[in-house]
């Protein structure tokens, strides 16, 4: 059963990817869409498939994978089941970094400034969280620190967008807080994908260290895990994944919270096995969410965060409830 988990998830991601590129306001039959994609007759459907739907699906898979993986890593490293980049303000801080790069014209002068500023914002947030409520801090401290980081980055975001000379900027607070993959292009993929891939690779190298860490810091240190190095890699990897993804698609929350929980039992709670399946699960969940927003309100750009919070927030409350019962028992 457990051996089949990775292939099953991979097939699921493949199917959802296919569904994602077949859904859109044009309403063209699947066969015709695929033939337009592959053959490329130069007509409008080819353009839609290649320049709109394909980059959108690629970004959904990549960002979803990054968020699922970083959620699993944060939960493992902080040894806290409530850790998640969106909820703790890491995505919000990344959005603030990205918006600063865009509004100051830095991103216009140098395209790489966009993902790098997102990364810097996310890095600062994760650092603050790790310092305030590191592994020993406990669930409550972590959540409170997350509320602080979220509030500050949200306020900064609103301030920067309201100060923008662009009359449309202030209306886009929702995009940056809720996230959307509408009308993304290959240039967004080119900016975000390398950082997400690099970040994921960094995080996956720490799978064994995170497994050992479940025995406690002292035990981990005695087994040759360098805690300083672990922390450095977790910070940088999470910042790269969340920062670059948020810089092109806004903050997308709750994927990093839900996915590791769904898959924890199947991997017997072992971080080494949880990390890769969380990446696949995250990709599947974001692809599914991005399909759902297009089916619910076609052509109206319902934000991803709306749907994911409707699913994720009750789940979060359930986790808190379970933690309370565990405490009382």
């Amino acid at each position, binding site marked *: 059963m457990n051996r089949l988990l990775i292939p099953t998830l991979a097939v699921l991601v493949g199917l959802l990817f296919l569904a994602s590129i077949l859904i859109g306001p044009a309403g063209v039959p699947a066969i015709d869409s695929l033939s337009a994609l592959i053959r490329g007759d130069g007509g409008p459907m080819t353009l839609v498939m290649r320049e709109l739907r394909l980059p959108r699906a690629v970004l959904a898979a990549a960002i979803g994978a990054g968020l699922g993986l970083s959620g699993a890593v944060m939960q493992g490293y902080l040894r806290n089941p409530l850790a998640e980049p969106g909820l703790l303000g890491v995505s919000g801080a990344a959005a603030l970094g990205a918006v600063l790069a865009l*509004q100051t014209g830095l991103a216009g002068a140098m395209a790489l400034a966009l993902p790098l500023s997102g990364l810097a914002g996310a890095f600062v947030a994760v650092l603050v969280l790790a310092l305030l409520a590191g592994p020993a801090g406990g669930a409550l401290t972590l959540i409170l620190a997350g509320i602080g980081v979220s509030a500050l980055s949200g306020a900064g975001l609103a301030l920067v967008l309201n100060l923008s000379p662009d009359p449309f900027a202030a209306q886009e607070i929702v995009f940056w807080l809720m996230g959307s993959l509408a009308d993304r292009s290959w240039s967004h993929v080119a900016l975000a994908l390398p950082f997400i891939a690099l970040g994921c690779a960094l995080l996956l190298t720490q799978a064994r260290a995170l497994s050992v860490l479940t025995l406690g810091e002292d035990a981990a240190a005695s087994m040759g895990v360098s805690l300083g190095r672990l922390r450095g890699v977790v910070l940088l990897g999470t910042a790269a994944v969340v920062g670059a993804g948020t810089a092109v698609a806004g903050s997308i929350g709750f994927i990093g919270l839900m996915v590791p929980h769904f898959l924890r039992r199947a991997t017997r709670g072992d971080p080494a096995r949880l990390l890769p399946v969380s990446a696949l699960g995250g990709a599947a969940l974001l692809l599914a969410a991005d399909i759902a927003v297009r089916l619910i309100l076609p052509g109206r750009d319902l934000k991803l965060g709306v749907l994911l919070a409707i699913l994720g927030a009750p789940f979060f409350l359930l986790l808190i409830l379970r933690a309370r019962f565990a405490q009382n028992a």
Partner: protein
Amino acid sequence: MSVFARASEVLVLSLALTLGGGAGAAQTAPPARVVSMNLCTDQLALMLAAPGQLVSVSYLAHDGAVAPLRAAARALPANRGLAEEIYLLQPDLVLAGRYSTVATVAMLERLGLPVIRFEPENSLDDIEDALTRMGAALGREARARALIADFRADRARLEEHLRQARAEADGPRAVLYSARGWTGGSQTLAGDILRAAGLRNLADELGLAWGGMVALESLLMADPDRLILGQPGRSPEGWSEARALLHHPALRHSRAYRAGVATNDRDWVCGTPFVLDAVARLIDETAP
């Protein structure tokens, strides 16, 4: 009524009493101190007012007025359309747009200032009505009649120009695409500019005669012949996803983009005779 509403009314009343005077008298003579608080009434008033008659225009006019009126607009102090600052200018006539800050206009009327509201113009024909109405409001009927005569003559010349520039009966299928994916249909001023330039408006095919949002994918699938891209951002600085949409690679790779894009700018915004400049430019930009 809440305590706050009552308190604010008392405040307004006392403000009116202290600042008093100026307003209230029935208008028989032409107004001498006119304040405009809407970009479109700004421009109509700038064209029609006697020297010294217009005392303030909206802050938008300093940058957003059409080129021929911009110097005149910048010579006047700008207002941000706040009731307090407009009242302190002691105007004997306030010009407002139909949709400009309803609360402010209601407040000014309660303070006893005469306010005239102008509907947005939805066609080239509406521009004649607007000129007539503005002429009557400012007591400049003769000047309005002269401008209308010029406007008609220019329109006739433009129709002749169009006949020469485009021989075939069916013009290209064109679509206006602005920030956030907004497009204007045939019932809008922008749509009438397209019609006057001999273009068929794709928005009507999409069922958006009054204009609306079009998803980029739907726009590409409709496969227009010509694109008219909106450049509504007055500022080159700043950034928004809304305007970034107009730089999407899919749009740049479309057939219509490769045929050469036209742009819409501040000449398109308000119903003044200057929209004919926009029509003329559009005819040349979309000529075969």
